[in-house]
């Protein structure tokens, strides 16, 4: 089985550092960490190697050392897997070389926010079981398993961070039911957490299949850099330093007009760089610009690219005002505008925005996904699974023009033709004895030579510089939450009571109470008195 947990990069666990998806006996965290599951004869042990990148002034230093993990069964006594001052450290280690582990088998340390947590340890018949709850999950470690993961603080300038490691074997994480209202919950204190999954629950980005456009035959698309862009323009202007090349391109531009083959040229955000690889000469209108290359997107991995942003939003008031009209949420999506979201879709959940870009056009969709089951809320019914809740669309590209020039070749050739015709006519007239005709024809020829000098240049431009306001807009996904500021009269609850809406008998509600329904058991009271009693109970009494 695989599981997912979420790592946070600030001390309040509000900013998602990275989603980590782990499979059995392995963990992955992009290329920033390394986990190793070691089987050494009969002894299973774990060497979790956590690498830090420029954190604590060091580079690529393992946080986790093997210590004495190499002993025989029951002798795994590592105690310092992580520095205790880490923002969040959880380190668990369990070893079961026997059916009923006895000595030397213990959870070494669980630190959450620097605070040592005590797990529920059960040495049952299935081996050692460690069970503890964090962020709405119950983490269980049984038998020959262990889990270690660590999160350290992102530096304020976000230039450095400590990497994270995870390792877990069979049991992984079980999603715990959200705590009922009134129960202690870490999530109540620390904010909301989610699975990061929604909709179909697989956590995938649901990107379109690659290259829906049939590239490589009639239509070509290339990822090019600025040097290639300049080369294209040079060749379409025919100003190659090599005179023959220049003449050739001028001829080509006139004869074949390759610029007519340019559909568009756009600049995209770095995050949408197609992953296609390879190199090919650029082709347009049947002309191959030899030596000017780009990465053909027809190679695959080209047309669509996704990029994901996410955040977890904690409860602010931790009461009804987080979800009522007292809280208003607007999600600003670069290129796509703003979307107003229900506070119930935001507060206590993890919000993920998955952009999908069509790299051929710059069209983007931004799909807003929320996690399921906000923690710390009493509702435990069915539904509430989260998933995709909104979408925005827009365009992230700005157009870059492609310019070409035929150097007036068309007019020049026409002029030369006229000149040649004049000379030819003069020669013909001379041969027939018409002196006057000779003079006229010569005049025509000279005139066309003058026209040759004045021949028009024909410049073509495809595209224009611009295209929306993509690159000058705010390029970050921002969630703006506006909240009411409550007026808090002293002793409000004592004097007015808090909202409750539960049933019982009047005697169950000591203190000031307001009742909305009552079945009076006051035998002997007259109707007039019962009416008065009801009115008093509905208006508020002291029990």
């Amino acid at each position, binding site marked *: 089985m695989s599981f997912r947990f979420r790592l946070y990069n600030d001390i309040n666990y509000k900013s998602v550092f990275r989603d980590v998806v782990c499979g059995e006996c392995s963990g992955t965290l992009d290329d920033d960490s390394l986990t190793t599951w070691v089987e050494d004869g009969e002894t299973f042990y774990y060497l979790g190697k956590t690498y830090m990148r420029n954190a604590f002034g060091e580079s690529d230093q393992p946080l986790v050392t093997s210590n004495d993990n190499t002993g025989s069964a029951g002798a795994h006594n590592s105690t310092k897997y992580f520095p205790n001052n880490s923002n969040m450290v959880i380190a668990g280690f369990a070893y079961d070389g026997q059916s009923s582990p006895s000595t030397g088998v213990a959870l070494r340390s669980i630190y959450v926010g620097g605070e040592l947590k005590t797990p529920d340890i059960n040495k049952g018949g299935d081996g050692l079981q460690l069970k503890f709850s964090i962020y709405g999950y119950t983490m269980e470690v049984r038998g020959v398993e262990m889990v270690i993961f660590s999160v350290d603080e992102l530096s304020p300038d976000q230039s450095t961070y400590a990497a994270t490691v995870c390792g877990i074997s069979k049991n992984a994480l079980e999603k715990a039911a959200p705590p009922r209202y009134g129960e202690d919950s870490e999530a109540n204190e620390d904010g909301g957490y989610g699975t990061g999954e929604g909709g179909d629950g697989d956590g995938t980005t649901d990107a379109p299949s690659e290259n829906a456009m049939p590239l490589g035959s009639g239509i070509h698309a290339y990822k090019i850099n600025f040097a290639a862009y300049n080369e294209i323009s040079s060749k379409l202007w025919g100003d190659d330093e090599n005179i023959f090349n220049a003449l050739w391109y001028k001829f080509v531009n006139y004869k074949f007009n390759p610029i007519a083959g340019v559909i568009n040229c756009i600049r*995209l955000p770095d995050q949408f760089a197609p992953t296609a690889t390879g190199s090919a000469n650029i082709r347009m209108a049947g002309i191959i610009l030899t030596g000017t290359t780009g990465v053909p997107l027809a190679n695959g991995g080209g047309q669509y690219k996704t990029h994901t942003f996410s955040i977890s939003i904690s409860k602010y008031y931790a009461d009804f005002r987080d979800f009522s009209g007292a809280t208003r949420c607007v999600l600003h999506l670069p290129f796509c505008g703003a979307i107003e979201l229900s506070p119930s879709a935001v507060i206590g959940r993890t919000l993920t925005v998955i952009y999908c870009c069509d790299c051929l056009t710059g069209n983007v969709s931004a799909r807003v996904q929320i996690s399921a089951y906000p923690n710390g809320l009493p509702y435990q019914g069915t539904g509430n699974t989260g998933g995709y809740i909104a979408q925005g669309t827009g365009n992230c590209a700005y157009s870059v023009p492609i310019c070409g020039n035929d150097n007036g070749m068309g007019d020049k050739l026409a002029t030369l033709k006229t000149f040649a015709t004049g000379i030819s006519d003069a020669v013909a007239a001379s041969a027939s004895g018409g002196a006057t005709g000779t003079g006229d024809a010569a005049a025509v020829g000279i005139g066309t030579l003058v026209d040759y000098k004045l021949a028009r240049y024909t410049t073509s431009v495809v595209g224009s510089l611009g295209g929306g306001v993509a690159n000058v807009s705010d390029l970050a996904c921002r969630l703006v939450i506006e909240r009411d500021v409550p007026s808090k009269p002293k002793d409000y609850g004592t004097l007015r009571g808090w909202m409750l809406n539960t049933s019982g008998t009047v005697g169950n509600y000591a203190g000031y109470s307001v009742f909305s329904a*009552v079945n009076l058991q006051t035998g002997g009271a007259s109707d007039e008195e019962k009416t008065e009693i009801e009115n008093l109970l509905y208006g508020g009494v002291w029990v």
Partner: protein
Amino acid sequence: MSFTVYFYNYNGNARQIGKTLGSSLASTTIDRNFSDIDSVNPVLRIAYNATVEGCNMATMGGKTYFITSTAKAAGGQLIVSMHVDVLTTYATGILASPCVCERNSAQSDVYLPDAAAKNYSYHIVDEYTLKDGGYNQFTYNTELLILMTAG
């Protein structure tokens, strides 16, 4: 038949169910049947008693009453007007009555909207930037152009 009226000075909340009145400060006997008087809003004519004039509650015939007013009358008498305190008279039955409690000062469900809560006219505005583990925003730093051609 007769019944006795006991007078008290109670300083607690008038809306308290089952008031504890303490010791009576004065008493008097009425030479009538209790069932013959208006048990909800009785008006008694008793001999003037300055202590009674300063009392605010009374009990008689197994019921508890608010003294709503007192007035001196001719002949050295005091007219005492009362209204039954149903919350104390029927306290046992009320406390045992099934009910839905809408508000309570000791228990709460904080996620139920409270229409009585008041807010200031100004607001808190917070901005949160969604993270992507990198720049946390889109960038146009690299030389990335997409050229699309035909033919």
